[in-house]
């Protein structure tokens, strides 16, 4: 059975036509998820009952002859996104047994469309980074080579084709980093394109739910399913949702695009030769496809990762302030309330997170607030203006996704949060709320690929998908054997 190889629309068509039963799919998905969990520790805990429940729901609807656009399509759900019937831990001891009383809007939408969650995927604690080393539930290994990080369990599960797609948060690029490490496409939508209700966010002005999938067509289908205004999310926009999949089929209207490349793109710290080479080769390919490529001056772009790290630390200090052992989460008893707060938080949070929150507390207060945090917010304005001005004259910005390939799990040289060197190329899109897509292209790396990235105008995901499809045509995806 090779359902896992089908694009989601084809699979849904087969299930709706009753050529394939949801039970067959469920058994196959359970087997593949168990294998990737064994190899990569891709899930917080592998729970076959979650799959059974999802399959039962779909079977009932199919038996009633309901046509479901994503019938039988399985997805991994990052454990920062709330789902019913299971825990949402954010890979933290603090939330080890937390069961949310509601479900994320994106999950509700996907279930209505006939998709089912196959498991809650592993991640760095509260999605602070994609090192794969900071989860309370153990390291996340790359399915291509388990000595290296996958960045996230979602990327490991999609790359291994255990699930048809995955949803995961992107605060400074983690979704795009882990997708690059595992050699799969990923899309971070415009801020407000997709409801954030049910996302346990750390930095509310940066975090967005994104998609990883084996192909650009799959990204388009899922984006169509989860996009749209949500009255329960005050940060969601009432912007029309186009039919992304139809737009991708209109091949005569695709490109060529005017593409800007920051002239100092090669100055990223830790930039590896393999990544540089892959990016330059892809640039040449774009030119051959009649893309108009031009180097542009974006002097503030290189400041985006430091700017984002400062803003993120302050927002995290605020957002995670309610994890105190009172209403939910780990409680460690104390002789008085303050002691209970301190002990619960100290034992509930991991070491990296504690350092990050302490830094956030430092620059939220006293004279550091004005000298550091407010200045970072001003730099944010300049970065946004620079990007918007550039995108007035160009369709897309084109840059690498991550300066390096998947790091070794045994190495610490890139495992830093202040700032995270992986975010050099990705943080700007989060600061500006702009959409971005990562596509794997051939490279000398553990996965045989490197991620390249397009950033587009707000709510212009269609162009990103079209550009991604053109690149993918030349570089069909590859998947490891698990």
């Amino acid at each position, binding site marked *: 059975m090779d359902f896992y190889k089908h694009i989601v629309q084809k699979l849904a068509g087969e299930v709706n036509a009753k050529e394939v039963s949801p039970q067959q799919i469920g058994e196959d998905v359970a087997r593949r998820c168990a294998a990737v969990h064994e190899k990569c520790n891709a899930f917080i805990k592998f729970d076959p009952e979650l799959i059974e429940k999802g399959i039962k729901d779909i079977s009932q609807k199919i038996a009633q002859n309901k046509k479901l656009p994503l019938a039988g399509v399985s997805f991994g759900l990052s454990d920062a996104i709330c789902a019913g019937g299971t825990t949402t831990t954010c890979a933290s001891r603090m939330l080890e*047994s*937390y*069961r949310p*009383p509601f479900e994320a809007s994106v999950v509700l939408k996907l279930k209505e469309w006939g998709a089912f969650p196959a498991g809650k995927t592993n991640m760095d604690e509260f999605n602070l980074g994609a090192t794969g080393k900071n989860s309370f539930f153990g390291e996340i290994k790359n399915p291509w080579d388990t000595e290296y990080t996958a960045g996230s369990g979602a990327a490991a599960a999609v790359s291994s084709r255990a699930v048809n797609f995955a949803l995961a948060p992107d605060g400074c690029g983690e979704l795009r980093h882990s997708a690059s490490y595992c050699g799969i496409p990923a899309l971070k939508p415009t801020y*407000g394109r997709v409801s954030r209700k049910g996302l346990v966010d750390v930095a509310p*002005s*940066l975090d967005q739910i994104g998609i990883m999938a084996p192909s650009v067509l799959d990204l388009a289908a899922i984006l169509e399913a989860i996009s749209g205004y949500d009255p*329960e999310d*005050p940060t969601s*926009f009432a912007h029309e949702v186009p039919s992304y999949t139809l737009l991708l089929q209109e091949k005569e209207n695709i490109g060529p695009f005017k593409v800007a490349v920051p002239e100092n793109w090669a100055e990223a710290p830790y930039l590896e030769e393999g990544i540089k080479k892959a990016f330059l080769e892809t640039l040449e390919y774009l030119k051959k496809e009649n893309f108009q490529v031009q180097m542009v001056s974006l002097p503030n772009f290189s*400041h985006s990762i*430091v700017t984002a*790290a*400062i803003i993120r630390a302050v927002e995290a*200090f605020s957002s995670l*302030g309610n994890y*105190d052992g*009172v*209403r*939910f*989460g780990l409680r460690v*008893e*104390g002789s*008085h*309330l*303050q*002691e*209970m707060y*301190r002990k619960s938080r*100290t034992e509930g*949070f991991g*070491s990296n997170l*504690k*350092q990050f*929150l*302490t*830094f*956030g*507390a*430092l620059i*939220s*207060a006293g004279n550091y607030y004005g*000298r*550091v945090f*407010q*200045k*970072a*917010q*001003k*730099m*944010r*304005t*300049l970065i*946004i203006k620079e990007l918007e001005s550039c995108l007035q004259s160009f369709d897309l910005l084109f840059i690498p996704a991550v300066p390096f390939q998947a790091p070794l799990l045994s190495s610490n040289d890139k495992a*830093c949060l*202040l*700032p995270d060197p992986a975010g050099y190329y990705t943080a700007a899109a989060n*600061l*500006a709320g*702009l959409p971005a897509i990562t596509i794997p292209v051939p490279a000398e790396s553990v996965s045989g690929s490197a991620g390249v990235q397009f950033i587009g105008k707000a709510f212009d995901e269609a162009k990103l998908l079209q550009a991604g499809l053109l690149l993918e045509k030349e570089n069909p995806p590859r998947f490891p054997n698990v």
Partner: protein
Amino acid sequence: MEISREEFMQASWDARLELMPEELEGLEKQAKNIFEQATFLQSSALDDVEATYFPLAQKNTVREDLAAPSLPLETALSNAPGAESPYIQVPKIVE
């Protein structure tokens, strides 16, 4: 930007955390790292720039003023580490 150990310890107190000595050392190194890279924040080019707190402008995001049921009490208490309906139990605040 030099930050004293006392300032870091005060910050950890504010964050309601206790850091181990090696964690404090790790934080000091990371803070030094980021401040060395953040010298652009002192540029006078930022003086007259307005700060951005949210990526895309939004206004008046309020919902319809309609009454709706709130979370049932038992559901609200279901994740509390110590609860005796309808209360959540915590250590004494006042002696």
